[in-house]
């Protein structure tokens, strides 16, 4: 089990509870071994797909082959620390509207796993506090 979790709230869905991102141990090992592609590769693919969704053509959408192949061919970014890997994960798996836009309160937080409650009885009422 990884040491960190990332708790975030999505400003597009303010009534939804706080979400918890759980990193994969296997992916973290790859990140620390320097096997990741630049984050810009993922952003480029996400932007193309988001444009297709907004234009109503997602069902017929296919990634540009050369851009898609960058996931495998772009030079690797080198070994990351655990903390740097968590930052990479924020930029890859959390919508940009959460972390790239200034809000009037923190919208995400990298925490240690033991700081996340294990009692899920009131899971749908979880909120991120400072």
């Amino acid at each position, binding site marked *: *089990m990884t040491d960190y979790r990332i708790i975030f709230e999505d400003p597009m869905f303010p009534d939804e509870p706080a979400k*918890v991102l*759980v990193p994969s141990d296997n992916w973290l090992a790859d990140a620390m071994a320097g096997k990741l592609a630049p984050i810009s590769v993922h952003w480029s*693919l996400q932007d193309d797909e988001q444009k297709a969704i907004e234009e109503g053509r997602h069902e017929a959408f296919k990634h540009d082959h050369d851009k898609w192949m960058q996931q495998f061919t772009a030079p690797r970014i080198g070994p990351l620390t655990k903390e740097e890997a968590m930052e990479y994960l924020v930029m890859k798996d959390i919508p940009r509207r959460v972390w790239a836009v200034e809000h009037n309160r923190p919208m995400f937080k990298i925490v240690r796993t033991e700081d996340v409650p294990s009692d*899920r009885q009131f899971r*749908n009422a979880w909120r991120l506090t400072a």
Partner: protein
Amino acid sequence: MSILKVDTIQTTSGDGLYPARAWVNFDGTGTVSIRNDGNVTSITDNSTGNYTVNLTTAMQDANYAVASAGHATTTTASAGRVIEPYNFTSSSVRIATASSASGSVADNAIVNITILR
């Protein structure tokens, strides 16, 4: 370590073979955690019985198939769960787990997701 890179895998008679492109086995109860996975960066615990699987390497499109299985507990044979994938993108899919008896969303101790394309 050797790496085999191919575009197509076939049987000797020319029939296609389609290995899994990604898979994950996670516990959606208590402290949500991934037991093991392949080609998965992370999962997001969105709310009770609702998760997102985030892929390390995106698929070429969002028209892949998701095979799923799961159970409420790890040890007891009990009322079943339904697992429903939705909100497909090339790099993520959202998963809802619910009681097959009541239809109410509920956490699963076992959630197995396999992505095939």
